[in-house]
């Protein structure tokens, strides 16, 4: 899993009513609220703000609203997947076209052609079962799997990826 610490910048607005002694705390909390859990196409999923650079820069009052603008620099822990990376995840949805695997916040689609070669879709059970005799391997919801990313689309606020399990050592970890 590609976790990284990146230094980022974000301007947060603090409403006038919070302009009191704890304004810095408030600004930081505001930053955390705004930033954590968001997705940036460039940096991936911002998981956590680990550090805000202190001292905080002086705020600028926004004319008209009276809100204070803090240009905060912070260090964030991000999860940034890369094409070709091998990741572990959990199957979240199974369809006959393929499975969706949740690798943390990332949703990876694995086409039915790219599930492990011995697996076939079982209409009745709505899961992929191994055709090999004696094999108990299944791909169903909540199965932990390992996959390799073969493609990724990065929008400004969204990441989407396709993966494959059609190689050795990939597939169900169960």
């Amino acid at each position, binding site marked *: 899993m590609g976790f990284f610490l990146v230094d980022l910048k974000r301007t947060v607005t603090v409403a006038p009513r919070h302009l009191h002694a704890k304004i810095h705390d408030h600004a930081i909390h505001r930053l955390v609220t705004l930033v954590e859990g968001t997705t940036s196409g460039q940096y991936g999923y911002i998981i956590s703000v680990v550090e805000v650079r202190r001292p905080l820069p002086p705020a600028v009052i926004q004319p008209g609203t009276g809100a204070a603008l803090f240009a905060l620099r912070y260090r964030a822990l991000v999860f940034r997947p890369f094409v070709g990376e091998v990741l572990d995840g959990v199957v979240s949805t199974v369809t006959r076209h393929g499975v969706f695997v949740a690798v943390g916040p990332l949703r990876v689609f694995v086409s039915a052609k790219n599930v492990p070669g011995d697996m076939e879709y079982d209409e009745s059970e709505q899961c992929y079962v191994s055709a090999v005799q004696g094999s108990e391997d299944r791909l169903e919801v909540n199965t932990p799997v390992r996959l390799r990313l073969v493609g990724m689309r990065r929008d400004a606020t969204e990441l989407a*990826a396709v993966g494959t399990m059609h190689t050795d050592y990939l597939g169900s970890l169960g």
Partner: protein
Amino acid sequence: MESETRPLTDPPVDGGDAPPLSPSAEQDAESNEEEEEEHSYQEDSDTGDDDDDDDDDDASSQDVSHRKRSRETSDDDDDDDASSQDVSHRKRSRETSDDDDEDEDEDDETQASKRRRRGAQFLELEAEVDEDEEDEDEEDDGHELIADRGDDRVDDEDLAAEEREALARREQRRREQALLERQQDVEDLERYVHERYGGDEVEQADGERGRWRQRHRRRGAAAAADEAEAPSEDESAAALPTSVPLATMQARGAPLSEIEQQSLLPTVHDPKLFMVKCKVGKEKQLCICLLQKAVDCARAGSPLAFTAVVAPDHLRGALYVEAQREADVRTAIQGMHLVYQRRVQLVPIKEMVDVLTVRRQRQQAKLVRGQWVRLRRGLYAGDLAQVYEVREEEAVVKLVPRVDLRALARKARYGGGDGEQVPGAGNARRGTHPRRQDRPPPRLLDKAEVTRVLGINVFGRRDPRTGEWFDEFDGDNYKFGLLYKTVPRRGLVHGTGMEAATVEELEPFQVAELAAKNSAREGDHASSDGDDDERGAAAAGTEADAPADVTALEAAPASAVLAAAAKAVTESSVGDRVAHFRKGDRVRVVGGDLRNLTGAVESVLPNGKVLLRSDAVSGDGPSSVSLVQVLAADLEKHFTEGAHVRITAGPHAGLTGMVVALERDRTTASVLADVTGEVLSVSTMLLTDSSGETSAGTAATLIAGGLYRIFDLVVLHSDPHGAGVILSSTGGTSSTSATARAAERITLLTEHGTVRTVSAAEIRGKRSSSSSSSSQQALTQALDSRNQPVRAGDAVRIVGSRHAHRERQGTVLHVFGSRLFVRVPDVMEHAGVVVCSGAEVVCLSGGAAADGGSTGWSHQTSSWSSPFASGLGGPVASSGLSGGRRDALLRQTVVVVRGPHKGLAGRVMDATDTTVRLELESSMRTITIGKDKVRRKGDASAMRSGGAYGNGDVVGGLYGPGYAAPHGIGGRTPLGGYTPQLYGRATPAAASTYGNITPSHWVPGGGVGGATPAAASTYGNFTPSHWVAGGGGRGNAVPAMYGASGAATPMHPSGLMTPAHDFGGAADVWRPMTPAVPAANREPERFNTGLPPAPPTPEPTAVPEAPAALRLWVGCQVRVRSTGDIGTVNAVHAPDQLVLQVEGAVAQQRTVSRDACEPVRPDADDALAVLAGDFAGTRGVCVNVDEDGDCMFREEGTGELRVVGVGQVGRVVKGSVVERAEYV
């Protein structure tokens, strides 16, 4: 003269002089002589100048032909060694000698002597002919020649005059050759050749001679086969023509200029080309036959007068014979089996080149699955078909069958009359196809009709190869009414040569496709879940829709869909293949020398070629090296998995997506669409790379020329009070032209969960769901199951117990009245859009209100999201930010408990941290009052939200009606974990509002702590800071809740229970309405399940709560054991008191112990309630009660049959409280 007639093809061994005849040879010669006579039987009838006596009768000639034939065939077996070759030659010469008319003017003596000598040579060499073997063969295949003989005679008579003339000329030539032969020895000849042609090497001269011999002197051999011939006739070179054949030069390997090539084209002086029709498939065999015939004839001294025979692969059913005159050809083919003797045609000079032009191998475009084709011949000749599967030499196509069931019904095998021939489908199977007008009309096969007409059922059959299911009927495979037929690839017309499909032809395919889709959808429905009403209704809705669609299609064949499909068919033809390439496209060469080369399109040239920058040449080389011109037909788009692409044409034009998989032939790609999340199968030719496009996602969502986007909420003209969400559009192109827009079909998901397909013109307009004007507020905001407003953009979880997508999370796309359109990423169908009512969801976040605008990772699985959520939740809550979050009391009905308005009820219109604005119910006034002075009107809210309440909420309603929300939220949050904001904000409200009401009720330690371990652990998950921020201490907050429950208890009347209470199981069991919902699904409600069955209450005056099991008795009829009175349980009191309404006596109520009475046994058709056991709480209708004491009943809601012990059930009175409670 003898030298003249000497065979030119004698083996070198015998040289020029004839060896003496040995005795054995003589004997053989005699037998030869015999045969000679037999030959003449035929020949004399033609020419009449044979000296031999002829008392020919058919029998004898027949016999001869038998023998000849057998010999001819036998030589195939033993041509390995030289001797056997000779044998075959001898035999051949015999055969040819009587076939060839050119021998006729040679006198028999000459012939006889020649043959005698040949026989001698042969014997001298070695070899014995196994005559027995030949005799055996004679029996088999001689008779075939009889007919031919008769034909020959007729031909011969026709041509006699011409023939003679030709032969005279040929004789002249032969004489000249003989002259040369005599005069010049080998060396002279060589010298001659050198002088004449300036030949550089002797070998070449030899080669030339050999070739020339083939073409000119012997005039009888087809191209490459000369083994049988011995290279003995150097003398023949003397007669070489006066110009070097250019073909010879070419064969030498000398490069030819264009002009030289031009000069190779045939002129009037060259031999002409004749087409001879023959049996299809036998061309090559006949070619070889002719070759051998020519060789033999030549050896026999009577060469055939043609220069070449060729049977090109691409021209079937014809041989091409090069000869000077037609008569020569006729002579050559005379007597040959499988050749249509009469059909000799001269090929015009202009077309001669075409005959021999070798077509490009890939001239026919590759057959691709899904491609539209037409059949070439047979019953379905000219019919449109779609390629279903491509195999080596054949393809499986699906087409509209032409089956005449009535005709079939008359057939014997279907119990009709005898096997007499009837026109129609039956004929087709026999190979005698009716003419086009006579064949049955194309119609989809209707299984029901088959059963009706033929009285047989159509059964499914698994294809042994693919494992796929087909309907088998009359030996053919059908699916959804379409016939799946295996056709040789040659029998298909496709590509440019194909006539474009018409809309009418496509119609049945559309119908079948629709049927396939519907059946797939039904399959989904059936397999997933069947037992809930709403879904059932939805399914019924779609089913009702589907036939409507079908009829619509049938009614208007020229509908837009079909027009679009027809267009797609036309586009799929290969003609405009080049148009699909754009600069920058990644392509791969699939034909020609550069096969498998990959590169990027540099430019598309007007001549159907594409300039390609290849990957193979590295960048530092000169650019001209890496640029290649390739025919567009040889190119294929090349994508790798994960590439981001845009669909440029076809029904999904404009969509973008990621390539998730490629078919093995790499011509079809599975594309995961960006917006809708569908998986589409698209030909790679229709894809283009879009990774560089910045607005890929938005462009893809535009519909109707940019008027709408996918997932817009629109209103239809036909239904101005309804609305639907756009799911997809088909047939639309990116162009904004009016016609294109008219053809576009837009699929909508209506607020009822049904799917409609409309045209863009039917849409009245967009409905904005983000309007902020207060008049539309009601439309853009609904209340969730906790009466919290839900707006577009909010993250919600579906909790409605009857909803198909229960426990799934999604984002609200639109709010329409009380209906929500929720986008659930986990759902594949309808692009993940799900319709539910507000009461069926729980709002997880104030997504719309949150200024970050991030929708969160709502698709996360809980295992992943929990840590994130709790991490986030802490700081947010501690900051005390309300962030615009709506108060928990908002829109609740509350009762004022203190102050001048005490006792008045009102609705909370607005709320701050400490105060609420109430709209009083009694006096149309709005007042502002402190939060501490109001209390939620629990019963009312519990009733109002009714069935939509989950278990947790009801529990709250029971134990502390006013505090359902805090309870529910508190219990839920750490588990769900999705929405830290929710509890972060809600909890302080709870603490501040109620914390001060009931501090005295808090019993520290003991009872509560011990009794509510689950609750305690629940609180353990809260971060301390959260509670501090909440305004109360941890100790305060907890008692607040329990205190509340204590305070609320007196609100329960001691008598009747309110129906709403019936929902809650205090302890363990809240029976889901549908047993299909497993208990595990409700795991997040842990708070609830952890509650003790009867929580201790500090109020001594409170009536103890009845256990859940007992409350199931409400509404049941019981018999009091002591008196035998039958009464209906009106209410229950803990621990085991039942309040009975005794029958017969008006208003007579009695309270009896549960042990003192027993439930009344239900009879068939009685409503019943299960009071104990696994199905406790279930209600249904009794089916029967058997002797064993088992009661079978049909469960309410699911309709499933259940069996329980009769002791566990009680009869329910119609119209009882329970019944009402169920149906309120």
